[in-house]
């Protein structure tokens, strides 16, 4: 029973992760790419919690808490960057962001 629960959760997490990856590959907009990253982060959190449940161990749960906190920080910084980029280019597409190109 526990193993089935673990496998189901892992599959769900894998699905969320690959959806996030797909979004990152397809959306040509920084803000929406950012949304996809949040999705991937949640998939990782779900994995942590699944194993925490399976082993009845606190570490995974604590990691999820930390992960959520870091996601908050990351969102703040990332959205700050988005605002900044928008101010510079009046646009959130990728085409303008070529300063580091060869």
């Amino acid at each position, binding site marked *: 029973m526990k193993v*089935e629960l673990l496998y189901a959760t*892992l599959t769900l997490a894998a699905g969320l992760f690959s*959806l996030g990856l797909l979004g990152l*590959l397809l959306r040509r907009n920084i*803000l929406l790419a950012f949304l996809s990253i949040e999705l991937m982060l949640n998939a990782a959190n779900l994995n942590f919690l699944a194993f925490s*449940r399976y082993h009845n161990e606190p570490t995974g*749960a604590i990691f999820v808490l930390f992960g959520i906190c870091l*996601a908050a920080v990351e969102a703040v910084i990332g959205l*700050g960057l*988005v605002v900044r980029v928008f101010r510079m280019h009046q646009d959130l597409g990728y085409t303008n962001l070529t300063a580091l190109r060869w």
Partner: protein
Amino acid sequence: MVTLVALGVFGAIALLGGALAVILRDPVYAVLSLVKTMIGLAAVYFILGAEYIGAIQVIVYAGAILVTFLFVVMLVNLSPQDIPPLPRGLSLYGSVFLSVAWMFILSLALRSVLELPDPAEVSSMPTNEYLFGTLPPIGKALFTAYAFPFELLSITLIVGIVGASLLVQKRNEI
């Protein structure tokens, strides 16, 4: 069995929300469908027995982070016309193939390779109840074994706040 069915239902809701967030052209809709994903995930956490983390998931993710997203969407005045349509052809199929491959690797291969303990041993554990769903055990762990990472996290939060306010302030361009 009921747990598995419930997990399937709420997992499907979360996946649907994620798929919509990737597909929908209107950014406001995309963010809102991600809120749906977060709520579905919170339900999954509840099903797994982690009530506290499920609550945090709703409060922080759905309540704070995604609202900030919405706020930014409003701030930069992003309309559906500003969003380029999804690509077609090779890049679409390539991307889908890559994602499916990741899905395959992560769900099947990881599972087959992970060295999980003997199910008999797991079921012989003293209690089948998940111990860390409620606040007291998590709080105890946070303030004893994980006290130092916890403090580091607070520093990270402060750095994030200061960094973000530096990033978006208008005067003296960085």
